[in-house]
């Protein structure tokens, strides 16, 4: 009975908050999520239904995300030469697009596309919208298709969860989304277009400096690792391959280096986090010979 009264009390408080206005929905859903009463996705849909107050990365349309991603990828490709070998890139796209389809966001405005960078650095860049660039050095940390899948699934999760867009300063997002500039053919003043282009340029710099210099927060990297494990499970790859890949990376990475050492948490810390999510789960049956053979043929000598 006491439980009944406590629950009733909770409902009364919640009702009062609702009456106070829908602006409190966000706080309410936070409480709901924290107390385990509702899931994250339920909270998200409730919040979306509530009146939008401020512009955030969530308000960036997939079309705008597409143009941001193209520019980010172009800037990265200005610094790193692509590795143009067709067979290796075809294989990477088969693998990557199969994985993306099993992610929480299988479709983006322009779709997922993957390209190898001709660099010995251990590095990868996931541009918003699904343009994923992976260095030869990082691919060399993989001991087979399952581990290569783990690398791509981590990058796909950065895209699916819009981690890149979160690096853009809120003031720029608001400026871009409330700009009245349209295409030039449709009466945009050239001043409007110039201002919008400058906001665009600054947004690209926000993202690329995060990708290249500061890196994402440990929380976002951890989310990307958990997302990778989930995708690997759904497709039938061995999620332990992520741990194996991180162990190889840990041996190869140079402290103070300019690559993953600078922008990513210590592989040992990532391994500890990932092993927590893997605990007690049996690995899938050993892969058929064909899987190993096609990996060796396409990326064996990367």
């Amino acid at each position: 009975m006491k439980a009944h009264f406590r629950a009733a009390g909770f409902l009364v408080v919640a009702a009062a908050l609702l009456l106070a206005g829908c602006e409190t929905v966000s706080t309410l859903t936070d409480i709901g999520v924290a107390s385990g009463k509702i899931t994250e996705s339920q909270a998200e849909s409730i919040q979306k239904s509530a009146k939008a107050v401020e512009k955030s990365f969530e308000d960036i349309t997939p079309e705008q995300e597409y143009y941001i991603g193209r520019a980010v990828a172009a800037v990265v490709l200005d610094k790193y030469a692509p590795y143009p070998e067709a067979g290796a890139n075809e294989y990477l796209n088969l693998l990557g697009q199969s994985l993306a389809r099993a992610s929480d966001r299988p479709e983006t405005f322009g779709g997922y596309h993957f390209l190898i960078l001709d660099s010995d650095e251990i590095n990868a860049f996931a541009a918003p919208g699904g343009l994923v660039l992976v260095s030869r050095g990082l691919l060399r940390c993989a001991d087979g298709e399952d581990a290569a899948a783990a690398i791509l699934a981590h990058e796909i999760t950065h895209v699916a969860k819009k981690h890149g867009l979160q690096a853009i300063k809120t003031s720029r997002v608001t400026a871009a989304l409330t700009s009245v500039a349209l295409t030039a053919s449709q009466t945009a003043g050239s001043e409007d277009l110039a201002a919008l282009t400058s906001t665009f340029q600054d947004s690209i710099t926000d993202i690329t400096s995060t990708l290249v210099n500061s890196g994402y927060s440990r929380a976002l990297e951890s989310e990307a690792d958990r997302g990778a494990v989930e995708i690997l499970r759904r497709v039938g790859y061995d999620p332990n391959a992520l741990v194996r890949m991180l162990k190889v990376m840990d041996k190869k990475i140079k402290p103070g280096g300019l690559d993953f050492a600078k922008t990513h948490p210590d592989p040992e810390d990532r391994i500890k986090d990932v092993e927590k999510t893997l605990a007690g789960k049996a690995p899938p049956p050993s892969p058929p010979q064909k899987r190993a053979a096609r990996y060796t043929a396409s990326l064996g000598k990367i």
Partner: protein
Amino acid sequence: MGERRRSHMFRKYVIGFLFLAAACVPAAVPKQMSVTVKETQVRAAPSYLGKVLAVLAYGDRVQVVGAQSGWAKVSLPAGKPVASGSPPQKEGWVNLSALTEKKIVLKSGASEVGKTASSGEVALAGKGFNQEVEARYKENSGVDYAWVDRMEKFTVSPEQIAAFLDQGGLAAEAAGGGAQ
């Protein structure tokens, strides 16, 4: 006796709360949604293995009649050609990641831009960061887009993915699209 009364009161609280919540939060599944990606497929089943019935383009509006694990069941818009060889169908499935609740206006005049700039219900195609801004940015920065354009042409067909998964001994029916 007392217990029954209390539990009756509790039920009243719950009903009252649900009323208030319903007044504040609109229904979960909206009737109309828009395609928010360049191109997407309507399939015969809520899965990427489902046969493609029709192809939808950016901004197309669909009537949503149901949802299941990351997929929306939609009525095929009138005038959309149904793939040849398939029996006439009125409904199919679109992955929810390709849809938005917002109405997408493909062509609009300057007056609409002002009106909708702050509205959460309408999105204007081509507004904000767009092709025009990209062209100006290219000009200002001198950044080369050649490889970006090339990598966007790296495409893989559903048949190639099916064969790749099958050959690798992997799950053809991998759940995606928000399926938890």
